[in-house]
């Protein structure tokens, strides 16, 4: 009887195993809608329409939109990328960028979930004096002019360009766009440690 249950469990485990392995294989082959380039001093999400979204630490701002505007990572004193790290350091599925400008530190972890969805996590630790209305701002720059539109879904904005639709979900959405119609600025109330957990959904026509 014991053997029967173990056999049954084994078969279930193998079917589950096939599902998980196939899923992992498809996750690996997820380059259908985007490709992530983690080189030099930015992270680039390349879309199949020949345009790309760039997230660059140099554009981060701490601003009150009046008299104070600081760029905490205008100068870089240390940068780490997992794309050029030799395999002695373990490989994981994610793309990692660590930037340092003396006491200011910024960590970006980009995790492709499947062929459409990407999780972007940014944690920035900076040391500025708190002020009323002070904001921390990161930028998502798109290479073409476009319109960022709201949806009915809370926390979601999107843009469409050359057959691709990119939805940006930020649970604490507070944003603005710049006059050049290429930049989306995501804001947070300033604190010494600011966290972003954004989800990008990229859908492109075949």
């Amino acid at each position, binding site marked *: 009887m014991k053997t029967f249950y173990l056999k049954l469990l084994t078969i279930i485990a193998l079917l589950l195993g096939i599902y998980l392995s196939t899923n992992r294989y498809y996750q690996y082959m997820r380059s259908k809608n985007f490709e992530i380039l983690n080189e030099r001093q930015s992270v680039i999400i390349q879309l199949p329409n020949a345009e790309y979204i760039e997230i660059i630490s140099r554009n981060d701002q701490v601003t009150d939109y009046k008299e104070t505007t600081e760029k905490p990572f205008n100068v870089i004193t240390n940068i780490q990328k997992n*794309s050029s790290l030799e395999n002695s350091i373990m490989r994981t599925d994610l793309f990692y960028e660590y930037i340092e400008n003396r006491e200011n530190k910024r960590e970006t972890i980009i995790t492709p979930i499947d062929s459409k969805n990407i999780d972007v996590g940014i944690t920035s630790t900076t040391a500025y004096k708190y002020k009323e209305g002070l904001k921390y701002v990161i930028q998502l720059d798109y290479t073409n002019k476009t319109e960022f539109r709201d949806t009915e879904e809370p926390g979601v904005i999107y843009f469409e360009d050359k057959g691709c639709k990119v939805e940006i979900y930020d649970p604490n959405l507070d944003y603005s766009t710049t006059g050049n119609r290429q930049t989306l600025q995501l804001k947070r109330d300033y604190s010494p440690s600011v966290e972003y957990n954004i989800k990008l959904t990229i859908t492109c026509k075949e």
Partner: protein
Amino acid sequence: MFDTISLTTNIGMLGYFIFSLFTDGLQSFANNYIFIGYLIFTTLTLPNLLSRVIFKSRLFGLISALSFLYFPIQFLLQVVITNLTGLSLSEILPFGVVFNLILWNVLFLLFVIGDNKSRNESEATLAEILSGILPAIIYLLFTFILIRQRDSVVALDYLQHITVPNKMFNNGILCLLPGQCSNLFLQHGYTTFYHIILGNLSTFIGTDPIKSFYVLDIVFPLVASIPIYLKLKDITKSTIWAQLGVLLALLTFVMGGYDFVFFLPQTLALYFLILILQEKELKLPQRIFATLLLLPTHFIVGPLFAGYLWFRFLIVKNLSNNKEKTILLLLLALSVLFFCLANISGFSIEKLLQNDALKEVGSATNPYYPNNISAYIQNLGAGWILVFLAYISVLIQKRKKEEDLALLSFITFGIIFYFLAPTYAHKFGIGLAFFATVLIIKYLWTLGFKPMMKSILFGLLISIWGLNYFVQYNRYLKFYTQEDGTASAIVQEDKALIEYLRENRLSDTFIISDPYTQLVVAALGNIDTVNAQYMPKETRKNFLIYLEDPNPETYEKLLTSPGIPGGKDITILYSSRIHRSIELDDEAWIYNIYSLPINNSYSINEVGENLIKDQKRLNKDLIYISDNFILFK
């Protein structure tokens, strides 16, 4: 029949070599894949024949593992001969390799003929060996058609390790630790035992190192498949289950451990362990000899394996009743849980006790929660579910077997050390491919599936392992994938440099370049560099500062940087990698010792006037090697 097949194949090989000798000359052997493969196979299996024919022991067992000591002993004898005759090691060592080839053939003949005279044991043994190799051939077809590119070298470790036999051969140096021969080893992780074997596989006879590394990745799993098969056959008494086990073990890509994927000091130690485990019971002197063999092979993995053998003897073997065995099993599970939780809560040896090492590297060497858990799970993928079921099955068994407890103990040790997270903890995944596979095969075999179900089961298992292996291997190759899609540590543009260094010997000089180029120079040009890929961070920074602002002051600072030897001539090799870094302001490589940009295609259109001027001050002229390399000599 198998005797005849083996003998005929071998005679055919020898005939082909004689034919090649007359048609293409002796030099052609350096690039001949068949010769390189034959050389590697015979070298790696010579200890087995020594064990069987000379020591009248098992073909695969403890004595065959100990017979690997033949290589260092032979090397020492050759050193003695050079001292007595005044000849150089580079003149003597090739004869040693040729002698080994002849010895292998003599022993093989004696093995077949000698056994034929008695009980014709070789016939059965060779049939078993061929049965074991069969799944390895399927594995090789899968790997080398779908994943690997021809002549690809996908482990920088090979380039690093080859510098040791190169130094032994070219400079006639005898060294016990690799660091005594080459400045590429910042820590002592092993003796030169492995390096002498590696020298016999390539350097000592002058075969092309790139081709040798490529063929080694084919032959090593082939050789390793035999003891894996024999162990599984011994457990299951079934050829098909054992063959399936071999295939699954080979299709397990352990990130950092590389069980049967690459021939490295740690995987050589694992191979020894598998040979040792062929013995049904290890007596005290045997265990001592096994320990003495494993320790110098690898100073971290060796003690782990030796500790495992002693744990089996001192603990597992002495558990007399089922209750005690259950307690051990529960303790194993609790240990995994405890160390996993400790890691999640932030405990890590590298962060707590190895701060200096981390400073030297420039970052942590291990991933942390939750990435570390997912990375470890991915080594075996869905196979972990079966490990868990096997554990449950052993736990509920009324008569628990010692072998099951030992297998589970090994897997647990690996997990514990991984979660303790000393530097490079992922190396403790080593052995997972073998131990988890044996455990799973043993578990599935005991369930006694009917033939129809068994074939479905086999299909599912191979698919699960195959998919996971494919993804793991390709993810690993990401670092080695160049701009043009080539996945290899050898970059096309670097070949011009290798050619130049072979034609123009730069004696008594020290080359300084970017870390990746330095590794290529040290490994394939046999020229000293500033710790090659492990160029210290401070030196990287000072080098870049000098290149951007060349003047006597920055040059002086460079000369006094770590790793730069005093009183030696320093030659700057300006590469596309450096040029790109300066032009594009891409400086990641100066902050982490493992940050190595692989591509070298960014054309050097112009070198700074100031650099040329300052090098002129030092009487160094500019030599264009190619579009990608400029040497200041």
